[in-house]
């Protein structure tokens, strides 16, 4: 599914957070949404997921404006995975994943055989079939994140929107999750903090800076020394890792510019001795 943002503006308590972003995610693409803390990534993602109504601007799914759509209609198109969604610790994993069928169920009916088949397929897709009957509280962080992904897949959406899904995951689970996302046929828009992970798994990147789109394009075009310095305030260079995969190498945070050469260097009293 094609997701389009046209001049999207959104404010929280009067303070503008997203300040007019136009961007597009093409069908089947895996797109990373990057930016420093407070750049408006999560807010933009929520606008695109239909969870926040933009103050102005338009969000389109396959060209149709979603303004005025009810939650159910949106939920059949787009699934959303929050950073750390809690759950009742007693719920079984299969029940959590089964909640993904909510947008298709009537109030009067319980889950039927078709729902159970979709849930089983989603659990299989993320490799959690063996844990289907476990209570939620017995799951590790990585398993919970995968269960939420299965829940999102059970919604049978045409696009998956995820907010920092790799947070709190160890290296192996990070790689597994990103491989799963890159391998899904659905359109994927994922907020990431790990630039190397973004460089490696995303088709394209959107880079946000103070609520505006600073750059967008293939990882090589977005993760440049200049943009990294300007947006993230780090001294970093895009460099392939030891295995030759795209990655980012950091020298460190950028310091305030050094005083111009020739200027007198302040000398403290103790240095004069």
């Amino acid at each position: 599914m094609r997701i389009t943002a046209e001049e999207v503006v959104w404010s929280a308590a009067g303070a503008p957070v997203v300040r007019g972003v136009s961007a597009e995610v093409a069908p089947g693409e895996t797109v990373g949404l990057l930016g420093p803390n407070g750049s408006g990534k999560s807010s933009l993602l929520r606008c695109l997921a239909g969870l926040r109504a933009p103050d102005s601007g338009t969000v389109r799914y396959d060209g149709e404006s979603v303004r005025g759509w009810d939650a159910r209609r949106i939920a059949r198109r787009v699934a959303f995975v929050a950073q750390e969604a809690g759950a009742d610790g007693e719920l079984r994993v299969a029940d959590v994943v089964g909640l993904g069928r909510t947008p298709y169920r009537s109030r009067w009916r319980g889950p039927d055989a078709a729902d159970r088949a979709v849930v089983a397929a989603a659990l299989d897709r993320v490799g959690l079939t063996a844990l289907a009957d476990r209570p939620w509280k017995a799951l590790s962080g990585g398993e919970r994140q995968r269960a939420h992904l299965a829940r999102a897949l059970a919604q049978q959406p045409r696009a998956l929107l995820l907010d920092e899904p790799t947070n709190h995951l160890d290296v192996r689970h990070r790689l597994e999750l990103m491989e799963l996302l890159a391998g899904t046929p659905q359109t994927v828009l994922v907020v990431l903090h790990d630039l190397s992970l973004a460089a490696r798994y995303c088709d394209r990147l959107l880079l946000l800076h103070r609520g505006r789109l600073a750059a967008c394009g293939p990882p090589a075009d977005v993760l440049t020394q200049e943009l990294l310095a300007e947006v993230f305030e780090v001294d970093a260079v895009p460099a392939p890792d030891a295995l030759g995969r795209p990655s980012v190498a950091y020298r460190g945070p950028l310091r305030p510019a050094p005083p111009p050469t020739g200027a007198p260097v302040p000398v403290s009293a103790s240095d004069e001795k």
Partner: protein
Amino acid sequence: MRAAAFALLGAGVLAASVAAAVRIGTADVGWTDVARAFGGRLGLPVEPLPPLLDSLVWDLRLPRVLMAALVGASLAVCGAVLQAVTRNALADPYLLGVSSGASTGAVTVVVLGIGSHALGVTGGALVGALVSFALLLLLLRRTGLDSSRIVLTGVVVGQLFTALTSLVLMASADADTTRAVTHWLLGSMAPARWNTVAVCAAVTPLGLAAAWLCSTALDGLAFGSDTAASLGIGVRHTRLLLLVVTAVLTAVAVATVGAIGFAGLIVPHGVRFLVGPLHRVLLPCTALAGAVFLVWTDALARAAFAPREVPVGVVTALLGVPLFLLVLRRRGEL
């Protein structure tokens, strides 16, 4: 399957409990007396009971036991719903401050001496409950009705009306009135009559059905607003609907029999432990368990220190505390 078995068993136990509880009290009533009272009304060829005994069974005991069942179901389901809506395991039906409003209304009516006593208290309590709930909604009107705001605002409203109740009592009530009001505040089934049972019987099933139809939404709300909304749940509408439903159910229950504590807190936890947290199953089972729980605690309140009667709220708390501890222990939360 386990849930269906539990529900069927619960319905059977409830019916048996109601029948058995009618016998319990200061005056002895035998099984044959109960059968004769029912049989006579159903037009069966049975020997009618002496009028005094018949009146005791039919006009006092039966409405009281039915009231206990209705109020028990109502409070337990309200507790379960509010625990999910506020994502707070300690939520109970009184969290919204509705019972405090009801107390203020009831006390005001008693002190001012408006209306005939029993109906006046009920009416005053109902008005007080609705006023406090209106204030709650007014304070919440511009918010997204998120969990913590509901809890905090409910506590504020509750404290305000508790203070008002104390003020009215201290300023103008004599010792006898204070004693009567205290009895009501602790909760007692004694005022239940057919007219109040009828109101409860009309409102409670509707409220329970409305809550049950929100089962899936209640499951989804456990994940927080954003995830719930992304599942296609109209979060704000659902929360508002459920607040109104629980407030009305609580108001009707409290107005008749006072603020019976603890049933709404422990019964949902106990049932969740037995049948799991999915509300589609949890709510009906909670309703049955709450009904059975209050029927028996009320029977105990009548019988334990007969002929003196203990307020049922005292009994629910005395039984509830150890039960609550047991459930928390078994769930590994304590």
